[in-house]
C-alpha cells in the first residue's frame, strides 16, 4: 500500500535493489531547465531525507551550468532533479539552467549551443519541453534534429518527455481534425518517454497507460529504419486505429519507452507536495536508469549507451521480454469530435504509440544493455 509515487515505490516497481546505485567516478547525468525554473539544494536534501533512506544517494547537484536565480524553486525543476537522482542514485548530476540570459535569446537554442561548445558533458540528458510541430518552421526542426545527430555521434543519450496531451488535436483548413505531434519528441534522434499509471493507484501493481501520455506520428520526419518493423507490426495488428486522415502512418512514431507519470511526491520550497503528474516525471526516471546502466558499462570498460533507440528496438523486438514491462491496457487523449470521440491510440502488445515498448524492468534491461 502507498499514498503516491516516491523513489522507493519506483525502485520497487522497477526492481532496483539497494545495490543499484552509481559507483564509477567518470559518470554523470543532467537535466535541462528553461524559463525561470530553479531548484533549491535544500529541497533536494529534504526530499532525500524523507524518501531516500532505502538506497545510497547524493543530496546535492554537483554542477549548475547557466544562471540559477535566487527566486522560489519551481515545481518542475525540483521534480527533475529529485527523480533523476532517485533512479540514477549516487551519480553526479548537473543542471543546465537556460532561463534566457538575454531577453531576445531562445533558451532551448541556448541549451543546444552549450552542447555544441562543451567538450566534456554528462552522458545522459533529460528535457521536458516541446512545441507543436505545426508551429515550427521546417528549417528550424531540421537543424535541431541535426544537432541531436551531433550529440548522438558523441555518445550522448538525450531523452524528451512525450508531452501531456495524448495524440493532441488540431483543426486543419476545411474544419477537419488531425492529431498534433510534438517536437522534439518527434525527432528520430532522441529517445521519447511516455507515461503510465498504476492499475491500482494505491498498490505497486502492473501499469496501464496514463491517458495524458503524448504519442503519435511525426508529420515532418519519416519513420527511421530502427523502428520500422515494430511500428509496422502495431499498424497491422492493432484491433482499432483512428482514421488514417488523423495521422501520418509513415512518420517517426513515438514514444519509445515509458515510466510511471502519475501521483508523484515532490519537495519544493521545503514543502512535500503530492499528486504531481506528467511525462516530465517519467522522463528523469528513465534518464536516471540509463545513467545507471552507463555506470555499469563504464565500470566494465564498455562505452556508454549513446543514442539508445537502435539498441532499445533491437532488444525489445528481439525477445528480451524481461527487459521491459509491456503495457497493454488503456488509450490516450485526442480530439473531442464525433469521429474519434476523444480517443487517440490504444496500448497493445509490444510497441504502441502511447507507451512505446513499455516500462523498464531494471535488472532485465541492464542485462540486455550490458551485452552489446
Amino acid at each position, binding site marked *: 500500500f502507498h499514498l503516491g509515487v516516491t523513489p522507493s515505490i519506483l525502485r520497487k516497481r522497477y526492481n532496483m535493489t539497494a545495490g543499484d546505485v552509481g559507483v564509477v567516478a567518470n559518470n554523470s547525468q543532467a537535466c535541462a531547465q*528553461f*524559463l*525561470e525554473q530553479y531548484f533549491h539544494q535544500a529541497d533536494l536534501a529534504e526530499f532525500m531525507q524523507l524518501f531516500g533512506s532505502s538506497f545510497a544517494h547524493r543530496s546535492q547537484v554537483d554542477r549548475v551550468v547557466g544562471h540559477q536565480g535566487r527566486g522560489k524553486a519551481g*515545481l*518542475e525543476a525540483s*521534480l527533475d532533479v529529485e527523480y533523476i537522482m532517485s533512479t540514477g542514485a549516487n551519480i553526479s548530476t548537473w543542471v543546465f539552467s537556460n532561463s*534566457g540570459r*538575454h*531577453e*531576445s*535569446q*531562445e533558451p*532551448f*537554442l541556448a541549451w543546444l*549551443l552549450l552542447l*555544441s*561548445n*562543451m*567538450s566534456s558533458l554528462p552522458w545522459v540528458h533529460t528535457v*521536458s*519541453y*516541446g*512545441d507543436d510541430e505545426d*508551429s*515550427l*518552421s521546417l*528549417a*528550424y526542426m531540421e537543424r535541431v534534429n*541535426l544537432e541531436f*545527430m*551531433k550529440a548522438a*555521434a*558523441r*555518445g550522448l543519450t538525450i531523452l524528451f518527455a*512525450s508531452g501531456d496531451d495524448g495524440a493532441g488535436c488540431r483543426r486543419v483548413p476545411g474544419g477537419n481534425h488531425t492529431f498534433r505531434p*510534438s517536437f522534439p*519528441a518527434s525527432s528520430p*534522434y532522441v529517445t521519447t518517454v511516455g507515461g503510465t*499509471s498504476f492499475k491500482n*493507484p494505491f498498490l505497486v501493481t502492473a501499469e496501464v497507460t496514463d491517458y495524458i501520455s*503524448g504519442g503519435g506520428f511525426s508529420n515532418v520526419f519519416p519513420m527511421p529504419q530502427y523502428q520500422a518493423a515494430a511500428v509496422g507490426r502495431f499498424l497491422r495488428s492493432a484491433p482499432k486505429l483512428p482514421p488514417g486522415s488523423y495521422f501520418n502512418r509513415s512518420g517517426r512514431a513515438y514514444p519509445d519507452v515509458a515510466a510511471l507519470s502519475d501521483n*508523484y511526491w515532490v519537495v519544493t520550497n521545503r514543502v512535500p507536495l*503530492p*499528486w*504531481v*503528474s*506528467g*511525462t*516530465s*516525471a517519467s522522463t528523469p526516471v528513465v534518464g536516471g536508469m540509463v545513467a545507471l546502466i552507463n555506470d555499469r558499462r563504464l565500470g566494465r570498460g*564498455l*562505452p*556508454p549507451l*549513446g*543514442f*539508445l533507440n537502435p*539498441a532499445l528496438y*533491437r532488444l525489445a523486438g528481439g525477445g528480451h521480454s524481461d527487459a521491459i514491462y509491456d503495457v497493454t491496457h488503456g488509450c490516450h487523449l485526442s480530439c473531442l469530435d464525433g469521429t474519434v470521440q476523444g480517443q487517440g491510440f490504444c496500448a497493445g502488445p509490444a510497441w504502441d504509440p502511447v507507451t512505446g515498448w513499455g516500462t523498464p524492468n531494471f535488472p532485465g534491461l541492464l542485462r540486455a544493455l550490458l*551485452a*552489446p
Partner: protein
Amino acid sequence: GHAPEPDQLFRPPSPPPPQRAPGWTHSGRVDPRHGVQLTFALRQRGAQRLAQIVDAVSDPRSPRYGQYLSLEQVRDLVQPSPTTLLTVLKWLQGHGVENCQSVTTRDFVECHMPASTAERLLPGAEFHRFVKGQQSTVRSPRPYTVPDELAQHLDFVSGLHRFPPERRGSSSTRDTKDVGSG
C-alpha cells in the same frame, strides 16, 4: 530577399483564458538603441556522413558500435565551408555587426547589436517587447528576410519568433476530479 522560415508561426500572446496564468502581453516596440542578441545557424557540411556515423556508432550490430566522436571530430565533420563563414561574416560586418562569437563546431554565430541594426540586417523584422509577470522578452511579430546570396549559407536566425518554451510534459497537480476518479 530570402525568407528562411516562412512557415514559422509567430504566436502573439493571446489573452489568457479565465483562471489560467497570464500569458505574454505586448508592451510596445523597443527603442532602436536597445541591444538584441541573435544567433545565426550557419549551413553545415557533412550531414549525410554524420547520419551514417550515428547509425554505425549507435547500432549494436555495427563493428563501430560505441566508437563515438569527440567534439573536435564532430566539428571537423560539420563545420561550415570557408565560403559560408566568409559570406556570413562579411554580411554581418557590412552592417557594422562586430560583437560576435562562435561555438566549437563553428556552425552557430551569436551576435549582439542594437535593434535598429538588426532590423536593417533582417529586412521585415521589427522588435517588440512582451512581458509575463517578472519576465520580459523581445521578439519580432513580422517575418524576417536575408539577402538572396545568403540562402545557401544560413539555415535560420534565432531570437526573432519563438517564445521561451513552456513546460510541455507538464507536472502540474491534476485537479481533484482526476484524483478522485483515480
